[in-house]
């Protein structure tokens, strides 16, 4: 009998020991709303359109071999979607989208820089600043290390131009400046707080296929007042959180960017469940930031592996902009590699762009999938 009572007591203790932490854990893990699941080739609410928008264009003025569009940034101006490709070093694409019929057209490329030397190499982010009815476009390279960046420093540039027309895309007062000064300032921050460098896999021949890339910026967005540029980094993570930095000294409308005036004005962290930022944009409809995030495909454990499992686990978050607020998970996108997001004007819809190919992983197929979904808030 005593043995039985002892067993019961132990059982109660065990039960309490299991239930208490589980209860607390569950309370913490609860998400405020439902989470959408967006998938390749599934067009159902909230997704209203999806299309492979892969087209080819010369990758630079020097290398005219056509390469597939690899979507890295999106912006919407006057009914036209503007697309940056991280595989193209001198041009942007435009793609018509009929929001009424929800038909996605075929992208066309527009050469913007005619004398480039890798000026838009690894152009990972794109944003628009509109003031007084006039729009300016900003394209930023990743700031990361190119595997073969000699003799010119690559991936350090910020492109800026006033939009003259979007059909076809024509800019005026275009200028490309070095954003290397931002990298230098960030490097100092990294050293202060102990951020470790970032390595990633590159299949080019050589002994060490896991190469030092420093870090990479994949999303930029102006704050609603247009004074500050927020930059989101995909890699590295710090304390398992994504890093963002704010840049002050952005030019007045119509004025050229002055590299020396660009200052890193803040560096802070956002919890994206272990993911880094693959793009972000200010969303005037929900009065917050839309952030697409994905895990790193970083260094390879086995460099002979043809390519690793796709566990990048893309997701869409909404963030108020307040540093004390955690971003809220809005959608999981497990089988696409989402690299870009933007609101389609003042409509109910946002666009998500994916880049499914990676030249360093030796995949033959290149595809950029454009997904349009309704998003006006977090469903409950």
């Amino acid at each position, binding site marked *: 009998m005593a043995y039985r009572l*002892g*067993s019961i007591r*132990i059982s109660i*203790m*065990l039960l309490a*020991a299991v239930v*208490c*932490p589980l209860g*607390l*854990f569950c309370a*913490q893990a609860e998400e405020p709303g439902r989470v959408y*699941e967006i*998938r*390749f080739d*599934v*067009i*159902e*609410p*909230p997704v*209203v*359109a999806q299309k*492979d928008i892969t087209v080819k264009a010369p990758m630079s003025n020097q290398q005219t071999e056509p390469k597939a569009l690899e979507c890295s940034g999106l912006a919407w101006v006057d009914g036209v979607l503007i697309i940056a490709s991280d595989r193209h070093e001198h041009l942007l694409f435009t793609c018509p989208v009929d929001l*009424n*019929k*929800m*038909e996605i057209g075929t992208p066309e490329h527009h050469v913007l820089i005619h004398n480039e030397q890798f000026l838009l190499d690894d152009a990972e982010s794109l944003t628009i600043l509109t003031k007084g009815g006039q729009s300016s476009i900003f394209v930023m390279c990743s700031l990361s290390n190119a595997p073969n960046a000699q003799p010119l420093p690559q991936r350090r540039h910020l492109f800026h131009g006033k939009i003259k027309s979007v059909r076809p895309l024509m800019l005026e007062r275009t200028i490309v400046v070095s954003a290397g000064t931002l990298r230098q300032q960030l490097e100092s921050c990294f050293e202060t*707080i102990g951020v470790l460098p970032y390595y990633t896999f590159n299949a080019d021949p050589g002994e060490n296929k896991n190469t030092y890339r420093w870090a990479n910026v994949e999303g930029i967005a102006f704050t609603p007042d247009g004074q500050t540029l*927020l930059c989101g980094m995909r890699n590295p993570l710090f*304390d398992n959180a994504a890093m963002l930095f*704010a840049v002050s000294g952005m030019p007045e409308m119509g004025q050229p960017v002055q590299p020396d005036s660009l200052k890193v*004005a*803040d*560096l*802070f*962290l956002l919890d994206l469940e272990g993911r880094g930022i693959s793009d972000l944009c200010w969303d005037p409809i929900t*009065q*917050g*930031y839309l952030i697409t995030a994905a895990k790193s495909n970083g260094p390879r454990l*086995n460099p002979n592996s*043809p*390519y690793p*499992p*796709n566990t990048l*686990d893309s997701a869409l978050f*909404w963030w*108020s*902009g*307040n*540093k*004390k*607020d*955690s971003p*809220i998970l809005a959608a999981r996108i497990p*089988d696409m590699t989402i690299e870009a997001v933007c609101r389609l004007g003042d409509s109910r819809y946002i666009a998500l762009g994916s880049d*499914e190919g990676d030249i360093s992983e030796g*995949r033959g*197929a290149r595809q950029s999938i454009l997904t349009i979904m309704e998003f*006006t*808030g*977090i469903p409950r």
Partner: protein
Amino acid sequence: MEESKHSPQFSPDDQKVFAESLVTHHDSGGKPQSSDTGIPSSADKTSTKPQPWVGKVMGHFKLLRLIGEGAMGLVIQAEDTHLKRIVALKVLRKKLSEGEKGKDAVEQFLREARAAASIEHPNIVRVYEINQHAGWWYIAMEMVSGNSLQEIVKAAGALPVSRACPIIADAAIGLQVAHELGMIHRDIKPSNILVTRNGHGKISDFGLVRVDDPNDPFDTYAQQSIGTPHYMAPEVIRREPLTPAVDIYSLGATLYYVLAGRPPFAGGKMEEILRQHLHSDPPDILQYMPNGSPELASLIQRMMAKEPGVRPSAAEVAAILHAESITFSSDSQATGGPGGSTLAMDWQGVLQKTRTAIPGSLTQTSLRQPVQKRFGQFISKISTMWRIVIASALILVTIAMILLLSSDGTPTQNRRAVGKLFPNAPESFGTRNTGIPPTPAPLIEVPGFSWKGKVDTSGVQFVASQSGRYFYSIEDRRAILIRADQYIGYASADEALKDGKQPAP
């Protein structure tokens, strides 16, 4: 709902354009357009070339769009105008069915249909009907909304164990049923395993099936090395008598492909690949998944054994793979997999019925016991001392978790360091003072692309999108976002469920 009555019938004139279409699509060197014989490719699926036969009716099937094509014919998405369900219509090329040789082609075509039709199983693509219309033979099959394993791996790379194993286990269960009925599929490969939107594997394409029937004179492949080189068993290459073990070998090679992202044997020439199947062991799968389990590697080695008698049965493969997928469930935090695969641990009750017990391995049966029962068994088996140790450990864990959770909001050392970098930086870069998320604005106007107001919905209670996973009540506001060109209407929820849709969450 009476759309078919107004749809143009497949007239003799249409036969001409249909034939031209078949010829046009096929005459690219006389080779199939897809990667493997008879299998639709992604390129086929995304083809936007207008087809003159779209909208015509063949039998009681309204032809909707080309899914893919191969040497034998086209696969077309069609609507059964009687049952209002979407099917995949496999249409035999007419020129193949003409003349004396045509009889053999038709018989082979019928063999495939009969073989598949004789199995009604969730892991095998169902055949609804075989018929001919104006001289065109066709098979109406279950339309699987999803991708083949080949397409998934091509698009997403190698799959993690937790995603790959349940799909291959499904295929093994399907194979077991086929084997029990005396059938050998003979062409198991990634493109012949389809993955449904809810993550189940289904075997398709019984075009090369061997039926264990002495009265089957139409097994034209009986004495040939048939199959696909990357997945072909040694005894097939040697043209030896075949057993169900050939399918196990091919399934093992398929599992290898899914986990490694490449077939087990590579080579520039087909002879090179076949030679390796005959004489070489496949490279260790663990080099592609360093954290993989030795049991899984061992299973692949056994499945791909040169000696057919050594290979495990389909039931054993299914049981071990299911145990593996549970063991590795921790690496699948997201329940979804590439290509629409959403993992469900529940096995539709099928595995329990079909599997055999594996001595010493984690069995499905034991895992299916209620947690409390297993916990009770575990507790009853250990000594009191161990119970106290475990209880103490759990209490310590509880205290640690409470401490951890109560410290929520206190920045770690790293975060404090980040916060000190720019002490004068603003707290907010937005316009909201709090992080209260926005709630969705109600959708009032019907979007221009919506089905609403464009289709006859008399008798329709539920609607869905053709490529979607869910069905919605016709009153559900979310349903307005379904595109008109994706619209499907159902008279009942049962009908939608039978069509493979799930209730909208």
